[in-house]
């Protein structure tokens, strides 16, 4: 086809000059925060909040220490899943395949349920949805951080899902030190909240005004 007509079409030098002039202000600014700092920030907020809530639980519930020790493998699994998800969500393409990270997130949730099936401690006197509510409540701050970090690259739904997984690891960690109920409870009331956070991240991220469109 005669696409050379488009190839040879005159560009608009005046428009380019205006664009370059408008960029001068941005060039004068110091370099923005790196994506590595974003990964560290998201994990620091997510895990820091989980750590703070764990401390509160230690002082308010004497059984927390023993429960946390029993759930150490699950806590390790959650740290690994959250770290991997944050890295895959916020790093530039080519460093860690997003599909692999999504599979790892699915395996992380499955592992959590499996580990609980091996070691259910006690039924709770609280209604089961309390876990879901506290999960969603504590994940709100990491979710905001995840969304702010996602603004710094082009819209990409799988990455936004992974950022939500990383944010949701906060509530999941707290769930492991504060709840000893059955695997069905973990799957429905913990896993459901985690999935909701990931979904919310994907839905909200698509509508955000971007700071950058870099892949």
């Amino acid at each position, binding site marked *: *086809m*005669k*696409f050379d*007509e*488009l*190839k040879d*079409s*005159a*560009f*608009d030098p005046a*428009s*380019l000059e*205006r*664009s*370059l002039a*408008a*960029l001068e202000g*941005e*060039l004068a600014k110091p*370099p*923005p925060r*790196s*994506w*590595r700092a974003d990964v560290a920030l998201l994990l620091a907020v997510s895990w820091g909040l989980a750590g703070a809530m764990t401390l509160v639980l230690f002082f308010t519930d004497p059984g927390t220490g023993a429960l946390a020790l029993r759930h150490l493998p699950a806590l390790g699994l959650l740290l690994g899943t959250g770290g991997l998800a944050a890295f895959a969500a916020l790093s*530039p*393409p*080519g460093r860690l395949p997003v599909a692999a990270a999504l599979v790892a997130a699915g395996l992380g949730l499955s592992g959590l349920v499996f580990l609980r099936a091996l070691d259910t401690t006690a039924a709770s006197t609280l209604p089961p949805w309390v876990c879901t509510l506290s999960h969603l409540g504590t994940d709100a701050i990491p979710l905001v951080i995840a969304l702010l970090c996602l603004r*710094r*690259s*082009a*819209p*990409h739904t799988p990455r936004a899902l992974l950022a939500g997984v990383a944010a949701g690891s906060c509530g999941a960690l707290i769930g492991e030190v504060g709840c000893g109920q059955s695997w069905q409870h973990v799957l429905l009331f913990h896993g459901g909240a985690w999935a909701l956070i990931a979904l919310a991240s994907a839905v909200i991220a698509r509508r955000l005004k*971007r*700071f*950058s*469109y*870099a*892949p």
Partner: protein
Amino acid sequence: MGEASNEELMSRFCTGDSAAFRTLFGRLGPMVQRFLRSMLREPTLVEDVTQTTFLSVVRSRDRYTPGADVARWVLSIAANAARDLLRHRALGVEQLSSTGDAVERPSQAPLPDPGLRRRLEDALQALPESQREVVVLHKVEGLTFEEVAGVLGITSTAARIRAHRGYGRLKELLVDLEGM
């Protein structure tokens, strides 16, 4: 001494050399503008998105992988920005002022536009955005399907399928043109 490559200029920019960015802008600006003109057509939008594209280059220079093809990286930013703009326009959230009225854009004299080019541009605009970006990158920018796939973050098979459909539709639209 030969001219610095785009990749060398980008590396220098990443270490704080703003002059290297200006040289890169001079080299890649026309390519980005041409691509966006085929994608968006409207001159004011093309200017806005060109600026957004290079603003993203400045803001996200840490996301550039040293040694990677800079032109492809910048084109992928332009494609992302154009796609997002078109999506927001489709949702009706773009170009609205705080009062909800359509923003008056300053009118610009259209570029010289011979009949054939206008026909081609009209036909391109009639394509779905996903097919248009592949056709423009492949046919106008001369990228291979593997390169197109890299720019758009899709597989080369998907790029070929989109191009095949796009060319089919263009043939229908431009059936009366010679040399198809």
